[in-house]
């Protein structure tokens, strides 16, 4: 099972790394925010119901939003202070229900935040409950509630647990720094996850453009049944299906989830959050975020409290070095552009990428020359050129036949297209049309 050398998958692209601006910057604690705006939906799944009211005094780590469904995760206060309001606020990409808390600057910790004891003395079930209560979600960007991933139906046997330390998104270095500076807690978190899933061996996949992280993690995992696996630097190496394929050679069946291949993948930052939830009892109220791009004065890796306004975070990096043209939450390949910065950060804000005007503008598309580059790079072996054109023409049966729903939206096709066609945009349109057709 142990495959030697650098592993990878078929297809993919080699975008410029853009990591040198921030990869050598140690994690810094961000300035404490005076006000936090904590969205009640920071994950895939049902939003939370607020359990505090205006005027309530809350402490750090206190639960303030309760999930109403299984596929959801609670939210906690990241500061101590008074609840100013509960209601709709501007968030990235629109509006959403938020709890606004004015910090008293004391950061008094909630009584519930206490160590959960030694890992050895905890059962898998207990750890799962801790993870669920800590509001931990996938921190690579998608934000899928972690306890759901760790609760496969009994008929699905899981024997492969992988931590994703690939960080294949250009520019982002938050996971890289985390692996360098807090390797022991990542290993601790992985061991906890192994216990939950009852697997005896864990893997951590890291791209080989981070040799220092591979070295540090290998040392931290010494004596444990954990394999640190070097991976080829290629995007999207950190996509779940590609990572599973690279490490085990297994293909997640079309339309299926990793668990259908007996695998579970979590981000290294998620494992770190799990370790915190067990060791100190602190739920997920802080995360590490890379602030970078060619229009920010001083790129940094900051540990920020969930709910901090983006403006404040950007100011701590010296503000803009020139007029920003585009601000992206996450990486340049899969992140979302935001129309404003007076919105809060969330559990999934892995990066704030600030591009100047020039870098923000994407060339106008010209006619397709059928070069086939999108076909070569598609990690799922789809035909993006035809998917996109059929989707734009509304040939829904045709795109279903061409397996459009298997697209992982990595964006490699759009990246590589010499005609600058917005292939992924067309494909997303097609997927949405098929989904809305199904719902009717």
């Amino acid at each position, binding site marked *: 099972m142990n495959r030697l050398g650098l592993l990878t998958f078929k297809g993919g692209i080699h975008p*410029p790394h853009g990591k040198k601006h921030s990869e050598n910057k140690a994690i810094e604690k961000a300035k404490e925010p005076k006000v936090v705006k904590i969205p009640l939906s920071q994950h895939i799944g049902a939003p939370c119901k607020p359990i505090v009211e205006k005027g309530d005094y809350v402490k750090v780590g206190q639960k303030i939003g309760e999930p109403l469904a299984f596929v959801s995760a609670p939210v906690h206060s990241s500061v101590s202070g008074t609840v100013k309001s509960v209601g709709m606020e501007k968030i990235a990409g629109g509006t959403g229900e938020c709890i606004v808390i004015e910090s008293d600057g004391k950061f008094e910790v909630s009584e519930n935040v206490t160590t959960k004891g030694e890992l050895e003395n905890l059962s898998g079930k207990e750890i799962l409950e801790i993870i669920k209560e800590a509001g931990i979600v996938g921190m690579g960007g998608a934000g899928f509630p972690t306890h759901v991933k760790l609760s496969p139906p009994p008929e699905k046997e899981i024997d492969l647990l992988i931590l994703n330390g690939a960080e294949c998104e250009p520019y982002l270095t938050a996971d890289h720094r985390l692996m360098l500076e807090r390797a022991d807690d990542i290993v601790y978190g992985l061991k906890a996850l192994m216990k939950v899933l009852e697997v005896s061996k864990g893997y951590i996949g890291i791209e080989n453009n981070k040799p220092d992280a591979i070295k540090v993690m290998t040392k931290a995992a010494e004596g444990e049944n954990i394999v640190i696996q070097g991976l080829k630097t290629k995007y999207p190496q950190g996509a779940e299906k590609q990572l599973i394929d690279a490490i085990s050679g297994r293909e997640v069946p079309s339309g299926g989830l990793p668990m259908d291949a007996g695998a579970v993948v979590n981000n290294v930052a998620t494992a770190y959050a799990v370790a915190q939830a067990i060791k100190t009892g602190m739920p997920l109220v802080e995360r590490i975020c890379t602030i970078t791009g060619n229009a920010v004065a001083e790129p940094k890796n900051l540990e920020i409290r969930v709910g901090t306004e983006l403006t404040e975070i950007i100011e701590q990096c010296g503000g803009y070095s020139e007029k920003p043209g585009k601000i992206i939450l996450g990486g340049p*390949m899969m992140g979302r552009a935001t129309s*404003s910065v007076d919105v809060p950060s969330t559990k999934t804000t892995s990066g704030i990428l600030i591009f100047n005007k020039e870098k923000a503008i994407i060339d106008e598309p010209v006619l397709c*020359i059928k070069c086939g580059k999108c*076909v070569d790079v598609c990690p799922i072996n789809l035909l993006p050129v035809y998917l996109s054109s059929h989707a734009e023409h509304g040939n829904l049966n045709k795109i279903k036949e061409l397996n459009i729903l*298997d697209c992982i939206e990595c*964006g490699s096709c759009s990246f590589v297209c*010499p005609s600058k066609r917005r292939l992924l945009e067309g494909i997303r349109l097609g997927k949405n049309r098929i989904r809305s057709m199904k719902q009717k």
Partner: protein
Amino acid sequence: MESKLIVSSSPHIRSKDTVSSIMRDVVIALLPATLYSVYLFRFNAVRVILLAILAAVATEAVIQKIRKQKITISDWSAVITGLLLAFNMPASAPWWIPVIGSIFAIAVVKHAFGGLGQNFMNPALAARAFLVASWPVQMGTWITPGADAVSTATPLATYGTVNEPAIMDLLIGNIGGSLGETSAILLIIGGIYLLYRGVIKITIPGIYIGTFGLLYFVYSGFDFYSTTYQLLAGGLMLGAIFMATDYVSSPVNRKGQIIFAFGAGLITFIIRAYGGMAEGVSFSILLMNVATPIIERYTAPKVFGGAK
């Protein structure tokens, strides 16, 4: 300030390659052979090449103007069509041959089917076929290289006769023939440049040339000399490296490209070995161009995770 932020869907970065940069690379790759043809055929070559390119570019501009489309002559694609068409002509062709050929290539083969990316055949090759069928004499009068041009036959026509040129002359190109097909070595150098730049992959030229070479080797009774002769003579290198690799008229997927190239090699072999014509490259590629949609349909790659 923030209200001016651009919001678009991911991905937010793009590769540096553009249609123009790719097409420009193709022109660069064709330059050695172009310059050599000028050296060989002097003013005649300059005349044919310039007329073909100018006619192609002008036709594209006029059509796009009439159809009120964006004029895209700066993407180099019409330049390539004109240049490749000129490469397929004898240096002795009268002035109207390249002009009519380019107009046909751009107006009929390219724009009548929707313009760039929509043509189902390689415009230059289809135009060549049209010219050969309509004006066989003008398209088949070959002259010797040099200033004192005299009529001659092409190496494929003289193959097996006392007049056949030496292999070395074929490689270098000191032979009669159409403008671009004379020097195999310069075309190969151009091909290596395109491979290095990632414009083409080895799949199509490799399998095309390999299939033809292997079949001819067996057919000739494992005769190394005649196989090499056949590989270097005629338009095989030009066709395999620059025409069969045309993006638009070849399959987009690797498996399709393998079948496409194999088919082209097979047909070229059949025409050259058993057919009435000495040359088979252009018709083999045109036939495979037409077969491309069907090849693509039956060679769709297996989706990751194995959906049916």
